[in-house]
């Protein structure tokens, strides 16, 4: 356990070193927040509510989403795939630790840094310029934090599987492009899932991606309460567990495939 704690801290520090990059990233996330916010301002000038969201909900949605993208990290993480391509994976797999748990610990450390330093600033800037909605119950903050952690786990579960595909495909970019597209749209990042027309909402609800963005934000906006809230969070946790299990199975199958190339 001690090992994974150290790996977690390492994951955190690895990102904390690059302060200028963090500042640049915050700038970019905030700029995109503004672009998306103005589209929604125009939308809600024409319609008072959509899918149960009003203007203030939707703007809060945008800036929470902009703050969460780095923590959730749905784009471009190919460390395992690159290790498979280079052959370094062989050394990694022979080390005496749980390969999946190692990367999860590392990823949670990274997410912890990103949640604080990339997550809070865009939201604060958004809250200064626009009228954003804050939770009414203090308990909501706790549930939101827990749901963000679960969102990182769901995202990690997907990314771990996508990376392992490199064992069979060698080139990871194809599967990566598809996973990125699903993660971006079906997570509700581009448009809230609540805005989706029926059939598309059915697809989004049947897949894990919603747990990466939409679920934590709906917790924050207090869209569900009581039993419905519990079910929503339980489904998110369920997906994280299912993806971890799938990751272990695939890793076991992949171990049998490894062919060490000399050189």
């Amino acid at each position: 356990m001690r090992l994974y704690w150290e790996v977690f801290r390492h994951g955190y520090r690895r990102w904390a070193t690059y302060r200028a990059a963090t500042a640049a990233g915050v700038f970019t996330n905030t700029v995109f927040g503004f672009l998306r916010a103005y589209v929604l301002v125009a939308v809600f000038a024409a319609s008072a509510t959509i899918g149960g969201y009003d203007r203030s909900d939707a703007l809060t949605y945008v800036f929470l989403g902009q703050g969460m993208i780095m923590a959730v990290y749905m784009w471009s993480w190919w460390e395992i795939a690159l290790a498979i391509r280079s052959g370094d994976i062989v050394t990694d797999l022979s080390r005496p630790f749980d390969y999946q748990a190692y990367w999860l610990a590392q990823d949670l450390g990274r997410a912890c840094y990103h949640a604080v330093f990339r997550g809070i600033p865009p939201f604060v800037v958004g809250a200064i310029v626009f009228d954003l909605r804050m939770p009414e119950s203090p308990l909501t903050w706790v549930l939101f934090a827990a749901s963000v952690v679960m969102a990182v786990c769901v995202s990690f579960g997907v990314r771990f599987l996508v990376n392992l595909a490199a064992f069979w495909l060698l080139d990871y970019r194809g599967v990566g492009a598809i996973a990125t597209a699903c993660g971006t749209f079906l997570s509700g990042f581009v448009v809230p899932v609540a805005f989706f027309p029926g059939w598309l909402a059915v697809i989004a609800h049947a897949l894990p991606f919603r747990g990466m963005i939409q679920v934590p934000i709906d917790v924050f906006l207090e869209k569900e309460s009581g039993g419905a809230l519990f079910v929503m969070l339980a489904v998110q946790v369920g997906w994280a567990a299912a993806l971890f299990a799938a990751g272990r199975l695939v890793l076991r199958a992949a171990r049998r495939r490894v062919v060490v190339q000399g050189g």
Partner: protein
Amino acid sequence: MDNELRLFPRLAWSRVRGQLEYRLSFALMLIGYFVMTLADFLAIWVIFQHLPLLAGWSLGEVAFLYGTSYVSFRIADMVVGHLDMLPTLVRTGALDTVLTRPLGSLYQVVTIDFGLRHVGAIAQGLVILVIACTTAGIPWDAGRALMLLVTIACGTAIFIAIWIVGATTVFWTLGSGLEVLNAFTYGGNQMANYPINIYAGWLRRIIAFFVPLAFVTYFPSLYILAREDPLHTPELLRFASPLVALAALLVARAVWGQGIRHYQSTGS
């Protein structure tokens, strides 16, 4: 220069061959890009499921803005998108190799990765553009058809210029500029997708006169779509894109030259 022109197709073809080595992955990548483009456009479509007009613009008209901007952006991405690697080249010192070769530095960096995958993205943008051209109620004539080609050419040039200027900043920030670059390139594309009258005044002034995104598609599209400008800008602006594009390219070349002169190798 003559020499460089003959080299270009060869360099490009060798990259295409490299990518075709991974057949399945290449096919998946095309599907991925297809879905990704669709995701952007689906967002617009989803919004229009709830309202007939967005800030006075119909779905067909916004699709037209989206199509022209997206096609221009993806052509620019195909040509100069590899500038996204510049921060890495600067950080690792790999740019030194580029500078010692007897070819223009910008020319080499630009052609390092001629991505075939972009062809799929461009084709898809064209599909949306063609649908938009038939559904946006455009009173087509020769002038408008010509203007469409001019718009895409100028839009491409403006995006290329933005990409170069954005990438050049890494010479000063020593390799940590990719995210800021993305704000201008991908952000610029996102911005040009929508009619600029949805943005607040301060933001609109920036994109009309500083980073000339309004000339990528908004102004020329007002002419093609034969519609009133909700912002009541002078009509002359609708035809100003070629001049703006040329100016942007000249600025970009000058800025790149400054950057290269400022470049100090990391020495590793």
